[in-house]
């Protein structure tokens, strides 16, 4: 356990150095959370209307010799068979960042991860564009996979974002409804 913590501290130092060199994508619109979670593990939280540069995020997370695994998940806007022109993402500024950060801090305490990023967009998002990016790095793949999955499940059910469809025919469609499968996915973590 002590060994894990030492590695995490070392990794955090190295990440912080790397972070300076990598410009945040859409820094002007991005709202950044705390840079360090429990144990100095870097947590990159952003709520932004700008495109997410996955390469920049992952290169920061993977840029340490302590990292043996990096899992990223990117959620994209589908065109729904050509019906959809865009998804509109409404969010609750302030609470969105706070809830995502809370989820990320929980992930850091539950798994021996070395760094994580959770970035969610708002505004109009065209099919093919990313909506959300979650990334977790760890010494081994198990923790990175699980932590990323946990982060994503909770992002869907506790981060205050709402999707509405804008259709190709110019009309604004309905608000997307919650899926029971999302709640079930979140609930399974309570049973662990």
């Amino acid at each position, binding site marked *: 356990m002590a060994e894990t913590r030492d590695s995490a501290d070392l990794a955090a130092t190295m990440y912080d150095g790397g972070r300076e060199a990598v410009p945040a994508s859409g820094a002007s619109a991005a709202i950044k959370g705390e840079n360090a979670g429990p144990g100095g593990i870097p947590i990159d939280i952003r709520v932004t209307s700008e495109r997410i540069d996955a390469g920049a995020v992952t290169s920061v997370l993977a840029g340490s010799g302590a990292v043996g695994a990096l899992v990223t998940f990117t959620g994209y806007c589908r065109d729904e068979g050509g019906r959809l022109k865009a998804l509109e993402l409404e969010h609750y500024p302030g609470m969105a960042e706070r809830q995502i950060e809370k989820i990320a801090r929980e992930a850091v305490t539950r798994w021996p991860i070395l760094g994580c990023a959770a970035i969610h967009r708002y505004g109009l998002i065209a099919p093919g564009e990313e909506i959300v990016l979650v990334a977790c790095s760890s010494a081994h793949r198990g923790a990175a996979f699980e932590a990323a999955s946990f982060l994503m499940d909770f992002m869907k059910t506790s981060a*205050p974002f709402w999707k509405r469809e804008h259709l190709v025919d110019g009309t604004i469609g309905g608000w997307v409804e919650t899926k029971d499968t999302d709640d079930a996915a979140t609930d399974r973590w309570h049973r662990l």
Partner: protein
Amino acid sequence: MKLAYFAWVRERIGIAEEEVALPAGVVTVGDLLYWLKGRGETYDAALQAPEIIRVAIDHEHVDHSEPLAGAREVAIFPPMTGG
């Protein structure tokens, strides 16, 4: 107390936020939803099914049994669909 509305709750009520003075007897989140629902057609349309409505006090999720005392901002919204 400031109330903030989001997504279809905001659309149905017709405003994004407002300041309200709570009448005596409105103690919990559930009381607040019930009181709001009686304020007019738009509120009634937004809060037809209060059991599915989610509420946050000062940016934290709360149950409908939560007391409102000390709350600065109460947000009322549908289940979240981000990600």
